[in-house]
């Protein structure tokens, strides 16, 4: 280990993050040119920094002291029943559809008063019946009484 590595080692993270002053950067650059060990350490720090920047930030729940900012995505909150809000909206929609169907069915199920009326020639029906039943096994001459 070259002389002065102990003095430059604490500056390694600041060197990677570009936070050193101008004179500190000049001294650090002169040291790294002559110190393979420090150059290897700086390389490790750059890789670690890059990896840390690629991991998505996890939002800290408000209950745990998280701070909401404009750039912070709003988490999906649960409703009072404990169901996710999307599921609750779906159930509400289905209930509304069922209620709408019920109202439509009630309206459509009104008694039909507009159906056409037909004449009922019962006396002719009696004669038609006799024509087709006169041949019964116990055939009487007549089973007809148009009038009681």
């Amino acid at each position: 280990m070259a002389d002065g590595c102990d003095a430059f080692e604490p500056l390694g993270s600041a060197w990677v993050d570009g936070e050193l002053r101008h004179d500190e950067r000049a001294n650090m650059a002169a040291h790294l040119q002559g110190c393979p060990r420090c150059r290897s350490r700086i390389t490790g720090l750059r890789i670690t920094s890059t990896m840390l920047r690629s991991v998505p930030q996890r939002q800290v729940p408000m209950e745990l002291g998280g701070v909401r900012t404009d750039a912070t995505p709003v988490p999906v909150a649960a409703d009072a029943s404990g169901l996710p809000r999307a599921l609750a909206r779906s159930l509400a929609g289905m209930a509304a559809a069922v209620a709408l169907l019920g109202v439509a069915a009630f309206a459509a199920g009104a008694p039909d008063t507009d159906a056409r009326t037909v004449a009922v020639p019962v006396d002719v029906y009696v004669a038609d019946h006799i024509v087709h039943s006169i041949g019964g096994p116990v055939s009487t001459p007549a089973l007809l009484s148009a009038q009681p």
Partner: protein
Amino acid sequence: MNPRTARPVAGTAAVGRAASAVLLIAAVLVAVLGPVAKAEPAPRWRYLLDRAAQAAEERAYAGEALWVTYDAGQAHVSTFQVQSSGNGDLSLADSDNYAIRLADDGGGLAEYERGWFVPLPAADLAKAHKGLSRLEEKYQVAVTGSQQLLDRDCTTLEITARAGGGLVERLWIDDASGLLLRRETYAGDELLRMVSYLALDLNPRRTPRGAPTAQRATRGQRPSMVRRSQEVAEVDSADLEVLRDAGWTVPTALPGNYRAESSFAVSAGDSQPLQVVYSDGLYTMSLFEQSGRPNWDTLPPGAQETTDLGFKAYTWPGAVPQRMVWEASGVTYSLVGDAPPEEFRAVVAALPHPTSDGLVDRLQRGLGRLWSWVSPWS
């Protein structure tokens, strides 16, 4: 060999051969005729009823008949004239009210009071013998004795129900002509109705001059009458299936062992009723179904509203055949038949009828209508 004994030996052999031939012939006859000889003879009641059906068509006769029906303890009495030509032409008339003619080539119904005439389809008067086998499924028939009626020797028969053994019918059949002279219908021990000849002429004159009103009417329409059109076409089982799938009520059987025997499409006036004829072997009922609500004002006189079955219907107390009209779900039903009143009511109860219009009924009806509007199969 002893010559005195040789001739007897030859004669014995000939007798033996003859006996063998006789036995062989007898065996053949027994083999052929045995099954026939062992067959049970047809019951006498069957012969009598078949003969009565044939006589109704084939004999010429004229007479006056009495009708008595009992409804809720009240008797309804009427008389009518009967005339048979002896070749399949039968007419029945009440000179003040109606005349009906039944014939193999078609007949007609003339209604005097309202002044109209309607043609009727051909009637097969002699087909009764075809239904005798079904009679035994539900009933028992027995010859019970002999009695005199109209000074004529008659054989009496009784028909009882197999279930319960209750008396159903009592019949008097004329021994000489085979005609059915009197018929009493019972429900248990209660007499429901009776029809009997008051006078009978087995040698009627043919087309006499100055014929009474009944005979003129039986020849058809009077000039002053309005002719109502009616066409009847038989509907086969394949067409019935199509109608059934389209929503028509066409049961193949009804309570009381009534089975559908024939069906007809009737074209009359403003509707096309479907007629299905049911029989249990003894009684017959016709169900008429019309698409549309009934115009109650068009019902024949004598109709009375009833709600005994839990819904509005119209009946004609004391009339035979019985008749009832009601409406269910926009369809008009008319049931006509000569079954005992309890069986008649059981059939009506089994057919579609209006139910109490509660919330559930209304929602079910509404969902059905909504589905019919959107479904491609409706």
